[in-house]
């Protein structure tokens, strides 16, 4: 568990421990194409079965510990998304699923979107992929809960003499 990665979130490690054993997820589609949404449901089904980790999909944001956000956040969904965000009690994790949510994806500069979840609310975990495989989703959620290590790191290269 590398704490320095958590710099941009409001949740401390202690907060995360509180929800780590029983993370209830609320799924918010902010204008995604359905691909990621279906993979979220797929993780609940027999082959991947995230209920092993106590993950349960709930129907009200008031019960949620994790908000799984898909989609580039369209202008029409900003209001309802913020309502859902505010309704979820602390501590909560915001997980951006798929590259639409991470960075706006192919719609990043469209007039009708806000270009990703990060532009609307603070985001804790980014799960890129189009759509992310169910395994990648599980990995991302467990990463947010501090149960696995991050496998990717920023890479920078410079030509000599620059």
């Amino acid at each position, binding site marked *: 568990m*590398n704490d320095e*990665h*958590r*710099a*941009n*979130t409001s949740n401390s490690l202690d907060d995360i421990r509180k929800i780590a054993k029983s993370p209830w997820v609320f799924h918010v589609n902010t204008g995604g194409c359905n691909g990621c949404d279906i993979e979220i449901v797929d993780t609940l089904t*027999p*082959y*991947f*079965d995230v209920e*092993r980790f106590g993950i349960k999909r709930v129907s009200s944001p008031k019960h949620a510990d994790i908000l799984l956000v898909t989609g580039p956040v369209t202008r029409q969904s900003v209001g309802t998304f913020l309502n859902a965000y505010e309704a979820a009690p602390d501590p909560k994790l915001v997980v*951006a699923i798929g*590259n639409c949510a*991470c*960075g*706006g*994806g*192919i719609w*990043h*500069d469209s007039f009708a979107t806000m270009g*990703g979840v*990060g532009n609307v609310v603070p*985001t*804790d*975990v*980014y*799960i*890129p*992929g*189009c759509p*992310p*495989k169910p*395994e*990648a989703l*599980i*990995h*991302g959620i*467990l*990463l*947010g809960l501090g149960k*696995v290590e*991050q*496998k*990717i*790191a*920023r*890479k*920078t*290269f*410079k*030509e000599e*003499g*620059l």
Partner: protein
Amino acid sequence: MKNILRLLKIGIARGRVTYRYPKDRTPVPEGLRGRPELNFDVCIGCGACVKACPPNALVMDDHEGTRTIKLFYGQCIMCGTCEEVCPVDAIRVFEEFELASLNREDLEEVLQFALVKCKSCGNYFTTKRVLENTLSAYSELVSGYGEEFIEKIFLCPDCRRKDWSEVLAEVYRGARHE
């Protein structure tokens, strides 16, 4: 009732199918399109992938003698177009999919290249590596035309257009599109 028993039978007979991920690895089919990666040792910074990328996950920025190519996984749709257009096979799509990150910055790969100045007007126009690549790939072809001809490779497109010979234009286009 018969159907209930049938369903019960499926439940019992099919057994537990769950993969114990992340403890066990799940089967990954060959040729999965996962994370693309730029190989800095090979990449010449020509920007072909940047042009081809549908979601603009690859962006290019020239600034004061440095060309920065940034690959942002958070925008990449894993289509593999970049791999197809790369002239030197520097970008490859790997079968890697666990890309989750706690940080936006960790999803970036940044490559910086030195740019070269045009011998005529003095503006930066392409990377050193693109020139080297053009020279080495087509040295044989160009060698017959003498020193004066090779000099013209070091001109920016604008200057080249002014005094450019048809033949060299063909060579350059060949290098760009191969």
